[in-house]
């Protein structure tokens, strides 16, 4: 799979995207250090970035077309890993069996890795489409591709991870000629159905009290028990707000994460840590970096000379935007607390590796845009 590195390849290598991704990840290491200065998680993250870059280089210099060709194999492998999680090989953490512990390799989260084969599978299937409006059959097949991993992830259960899969399918369908009226219809239906489902759910007791509390914590964080389910939201908002314009610049004496007011500061709430330490300036810079990275990815999709390549990049980009919005929205107290990592920033090898693989595809595709 290792392609011969030619001069032309290097000339077309997308340095900007690569440096952006590494910079954000490096910034993330700093924030992980700010979150837990007395623990060595930040050094592990540096090792993780090293491993991820190795995978990144491997993918960049592989021919993405071949990889997309054998997508069903990866997809099957992904499903196998997800199934293994549910066997005694899986490790349960906080009531979720989301981890797989294998000898030599160690512990990892297949639900992260499975995103790559799922996107490749979607790109492969919808990439063969020749034209015309999206048919119901195509829609159902797309949904079936998604149903495999999402179904297994829901068995863990890890609703947060499962949700991040849907934007991939949405992007694939949207770019495969779904009629605009269906998009509008779906949007309006969702806008009406979600509140309706909420009301019915609460009335019938299908939505559990803790789930209600999590939503209420968003609507009115001060009125819910600040020590109960609203606690995470309130503490995150305090942490973000405290940062002010330029942040506390790493003063760990009084930081919300060091004093353990902020839960999970190195993973789910890494954005709150960023906000506390670097303030508004740091946060806006980070969001701009993400915007730039996404622009580069979408530009890459635009320039790709094949439909599967375009679709793959757009699926990755959409999933990434969605994850950023979910994670930061949670940290800012506008979305419920759902454990979704912030791409490139949150500590954790699985997520880091997956994101760098995805960006590896983008760079690989960009590098080969003139080849045909």
């Amino acid at each position, binding site marked *: 799979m290792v392609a011969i590195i030619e001069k032309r390849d290097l000339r077309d290598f997308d340095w900007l995207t690569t440096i952006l991704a590494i910079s954000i990840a490096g910034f993330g290491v700093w924030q992980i250090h700010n979150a837990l200065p007395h623990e060595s998680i930040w050094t592990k993250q540096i090792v993780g970035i090293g491993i991820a870059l190795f995978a990144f280089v491997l993918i960049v210099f592989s021919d993405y077309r071949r990889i997309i060709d054998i997508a069903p194999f990866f997809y099957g492998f992904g499903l196998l890993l997800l199934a293994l999680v549910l066997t005694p090989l899986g490790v349960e953490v906080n009531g979720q069996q989301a981890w797989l512990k294998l000898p030599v390799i160690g512990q990892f989260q297949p639900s992260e890795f499975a995103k790559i084969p799922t996107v490749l599978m979607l790109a492969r299937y919808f990439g063969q489409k020749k034209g015309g*409006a999206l048919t119901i059959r195509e829609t159902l097949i797309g949904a079936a591709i998604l149903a495999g991993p999402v179904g297994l992830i829901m068995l863990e259960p890890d609703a947060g991870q499962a949700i991040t899969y849907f934007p991939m399918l949405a992007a694939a369908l949207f*770019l495969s000629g779904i009629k605009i009226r269906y998009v509008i219809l779906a949007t309006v239906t969702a806008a009406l159905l979600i509140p309706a489902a909420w009301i019915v759910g609460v009335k019938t007791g299908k939505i559990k009290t803790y789930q209600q509390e999590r939503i209420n914590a968003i609507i009115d964080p001060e009125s819910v028990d600040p020590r109960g389910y609203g606690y995470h939201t309130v503490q995150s908002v305090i942490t*973000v707000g405290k940062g002010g314009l330029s942040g506390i610049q790493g003063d760990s004496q009084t930081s*919300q994460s060091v*004093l353990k007011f902020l839960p999970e500061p190195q993973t789910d709430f890494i954005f709150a840590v960023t*906000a506390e330490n670097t303030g508004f300036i740091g946060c806006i810079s980070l969001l701009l970096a993400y915007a730039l990275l996404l622009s580069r990815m979408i530009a890459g999709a635009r320039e790709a000379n*094949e439909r599967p390549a375009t679709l793959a990049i757009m699926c990755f*980009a959409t999933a990434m935007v969605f994850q950023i919005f979910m994670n930061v929205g949670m940290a800012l107290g506008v979305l419920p607390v759902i454990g979704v990592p912030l791409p490139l920033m949150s500590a954790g090898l699985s997520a880091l590796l997956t994101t760098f693989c995805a960006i590896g595809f983008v760079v690989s595709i960009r590098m080969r845009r003139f080849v045909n």
Partner: protein
Amino acid sequence: MKLNNYTQNVGMRMIVIQIVAFILLSLLGVRLYFLQIVQGDYWSGRAENQRVRLIPIPAPRGAILDRNGKILVDSRPTYNVVLSNEPLKTIDVSERVPEYARGLNLEPDFVAERLSLIKKQNDFETMVLKESATMQDIAWVESHNLEFPELRIELQPQRTYPHGKMLAHVVGYVGEISPKQLESDTYKAKGLRPGDIIGKNGLEQSYDEFLRGRPGYRKVLVDSRGRVQSEIEVVQPQAGQDLISTIDLDLQISAEQQLEASATKRGALVALDPNNGEILALASAPSYDPNVFTQGSKTPEGRRQIAAYWQDEKRPLYNRAIQGQYPPGSTWKIPESLGALQQGVITVKNSNLACGGGITIGNKFTRCMGSHGSPPLSYAITKSCDGYYYRLALKMKIEGLIEMIETFDFDKRTGIDIPNEKVSQTPKSWKPIVEKREGRWSDIRTVYASIGQDTVVVTPISLLRAVASIGVKGKMYVPHLMKEFKPIGAMGEEGSQSYFAGRPGFGFDRPEPKLIPMTPEQEEVMVKGMWGVVQPGGTAGASAIAGFDIAGKTGTAQVAALGKDVGAKKDHAWFVSFAPAFKPEIAIIALIENVGFGGSHAAPAAKGVYETYIATRYGGVPPAGASIEPKLIAKR
């Protein structure tokens, strides 16, 4: 661009995705602006509030000393296991109960009670779980630091009463402020907080404001579970002022011993300096151990002991010297006699009244204990002639008695500087009630009142105050236990937040006596009569001390109907006195409950204290001039 090969305008759709992405990121930016720029200060304050905690450093309470500087009450440092409620808020505390009970050797019921109490308190409050922790307790808490972050060891001053039961009724005790007291205006204004230690009785309560220091605090950084991470600032407390009391420990010991040695071991004995009202000894028996209240109120055994005190039929918590209301019996004749002289019912020259062996009112004969002919006042006092006083009171009329009662403040509290003093009940308070109930005040009631029975009940302290004034030209001082408060220096830098101003020393605030109008002749005849009481032939003749004249009056107050002085309802024995008779330095009242004749029970108790006084003050040899030849008296 190959995109146009595909249908449905893929290029446009990609732009739509990009625009949606940017809108979402912009929304996050707007929210960030709102939280960090608009509300930044507010959230910053919230963060500071939850991480900065003030831990009070209790101030050592001022010591209480006797007049010679001997320690009566002190504080010593003890280690307490303190429970803070913050880490407990989100957990089920019932699991903690057996753990604490085992680890700290406490009763599970008690632990459960403390835990439910602390859960109800405001955030960040603390409560003592175990006082006077042992080394094992401390080791257990330290080794379970991670498991039970809510427990910590604090060094706190613990009030100790080295003399135990002795002095309990004088010094009182301290305890945690009760929720009810916290609500009351007196304590609210002083800025007291739950868990603060305040005086709850005796001098501890009366002078709490001065004895109590001003607590300092440690400003610390805590984590989300309330564990202290580092110290930001320490403000040292300002100790309370030391109180020099008027008590003479030697006399106090003697007084307590006298009560202990009495037949019923129940009664009161008070000694004071008639020249200024300073109380030298104040004993009430039975007594209680204040240490039980300060140390034991948080342990189950301590609570049982306190409950036992409350249920004890002998009422150890009740200060008989200031709360006990007893018929004064014949001791009442002293203020009554002076009242009669003042009102002109009798005069110094012409004070003879018939004894008659008793008196007949209507068809009822009320007897005198002897047959005294027609004695003058001093002889009537010496022999305690009831017949004389029946007639004297009838001449004074009830109005005259009431006037006397007002003169000697028997209708008021004496104003002693310890709490819960009771007011004597006299014909002044009873007359309207009796008249309402019986239609009139009958002579027989006046007759009974003349010998301190029926409608007359007085507190020992009020009687002592009245009688003591007779030897000092009618100067009736407010009896008091506080001699002086020592000054205390300022703490911290002036102008800084942690500055505590120094507090000056001061003395008793009501040193001026009430003056009872009395001529030297009236005083002389009174003292002469009282002197005779403690001379051979007087009712307390057996209690005379050679070389140290005592002027006194015995009393034997009926508890049951006349002549049925048996068993538990035996008469109360009284002796009220001052000495040396013609130049008093000390006045003593002794009351022994239900023992019988005053001359044989109360007078010897007083004598014992006088002897201690002579021994400690004069090395056992009465001073010159403390006794006058009987012949000289006769000449006067």
